[in-house]
């Protein structure tokens, strides 16, 4: 549905209505044509089910004419109702024309009668409702309620993922790995390679490979073994890549490395 369009129309419609309602007040305080019809119908002094709609239509049209002659301003819906009732009256008076389309005069009259009866019924129901015992007037609730103390126990929780994400937030460095994951006596080839690449630039002369062991790895035998092996493998790799030269005087002699001097030969 074209709601947007309706919304745009709304403020006007409400305003129109307020204006219309203000005018209705001018017509003797009737709440609208249906209210006026219901009031008029009471003059027939019969059960609403047996009401003569034709007579009611005549009454209404007469009322409207009087109001007009008094130059009372009539709200549009009163006039619309008057036109409709005039049409209904003609339908009710003329013999039914089988060629004519739409509901018959009787059907329209019956519905109007139903509307009046229903409105009256709702007014009666409203009166009965308001006549009931009402709380705070006829009967009363507890005046001195005892507070139900809401013992609100708040438990806090978090998931492992929350924990991880929180940690990631504080430590977003890409290379960061929690140290608890490190096997503490292992130096990998990658680590050694990375480290030696940085150091080799400073080693112009032959240096014993063992002196490249990282600080803190020389004393513990396991660490020393791992670091030595990693450094050795890294040296071979760097030699292969042409960054350094490597030599060993004899079996079990210290292994020495030095930065390869470009265009040495």
């Amino acid at each position, binding site marked *: 549905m074209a709601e947007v369009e309706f919304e745009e129309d709304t403020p006007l419609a409400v305003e129109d209505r307020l204006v219309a309602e203000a005018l209705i007040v001018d017509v003797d305080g009737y709440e609208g044509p249906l209210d006026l019809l219901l009031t008029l119908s009471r003059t027939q002094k019969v059960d609403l089910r047996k009401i003569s709609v034709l007579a009611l239509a005549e009454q209404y049209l007469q009322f409207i004419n009087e109001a007009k002659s008094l130059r009372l301003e009539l709200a549009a819906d009163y006039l*619309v109702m008057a036109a409709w009732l005039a049409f209904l009256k003609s339908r009710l008076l003329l013999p039914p024309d089988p060629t004519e389309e739409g509901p018959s005069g009787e059907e329209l009259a019956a519905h109007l009668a139903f509307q009046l009866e229903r409105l009256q019924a709702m007014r009666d129901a409203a009166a009965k409702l308001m006549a009931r015992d009402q709380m705070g007037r006829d009967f009363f609730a507890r005046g001195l309620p005892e507070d139900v103390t809401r013992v609100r126990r708040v438990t806090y929780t978090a998931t492992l993922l929350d924990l991880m994400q929180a940690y990631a937030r504080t430590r977003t460095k890409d290379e960061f790995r929690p140290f608890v994951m490190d096997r503490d006596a292992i130096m990998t080839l990658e680590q050694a390679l990375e480290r030696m690449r940085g150091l080799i630039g400073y080693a112009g002369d032959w240096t014993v490979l063992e002196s490249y062991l990282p600080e803190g790895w020389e004393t513990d035998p396991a660490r020393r073994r791992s670091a030595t092996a990693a450094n050795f493998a890294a040296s071979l790799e760097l030699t292969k890549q042409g960054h350094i030269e490597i030599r060993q005087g004899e079996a079990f002699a210290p292994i020495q490395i030095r930065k390869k001097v470009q265009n040495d030969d």
Partner: protein
Amino acid sequence: MTTEDNEKPEVEESLFEAPPMGEQERMVEAILFATAEPVTVKDMAERMPHGCDPAEALVHLRKRYEGRGVRVVKVADAWAIRTAPDLGFLMQKETVETRKLSRAAIETLAIIAYHQPVTRSEIEEIRGVSVSRGTVDQLLEMEWIRFGRRRMTPGRPVTFVVTPEFLDHFGLENARDLPGLKELRSAGLLENRPPPGAMPGMPEGDDEDDEAIGQSELFED
């Protein structure tokens, strides 16, 4: 007062020893006295020891207070204690001035109560005039009506229904107890009879406008 006949004592007792029914009645009594708002059976059961049957205790309690200065009343699916209506004269100090409702508001309230769930345009058709925003707002604010489900018709208009607060205020156990409801229904006066052809004063186009307003504004938050 006890329930050994129609319950399954062997099952219940084997799990927990529920307090005797007399004790349960005392508990329900204390709970209902302590609050101004109706309390649901579920709520009572949550506060009472395991294995209690507040619904049964309520039956006993209700009987106990018959003819007394206060009564045990049912409001929708909850229970409350209220003073007997014939003693209202004693409570002048407690009387709360309710805002005077306009005739339009009273009629609108009655139409919602008897026709619920009902759309705004249906209310307007019954009353023959448009329903002002203020009227509906006032009833909503008093918490006597609330929004019901949307009607599954074009425009999906919202409907209005009455609340437990409404029932409580008018001393009704549920909306079926509305005075004269049966008679109105059997007389066909609660039917939503479509008019044969277009009715004057209620052009169809306007109705849809209203509903569009309702839809966009009512459930915005």
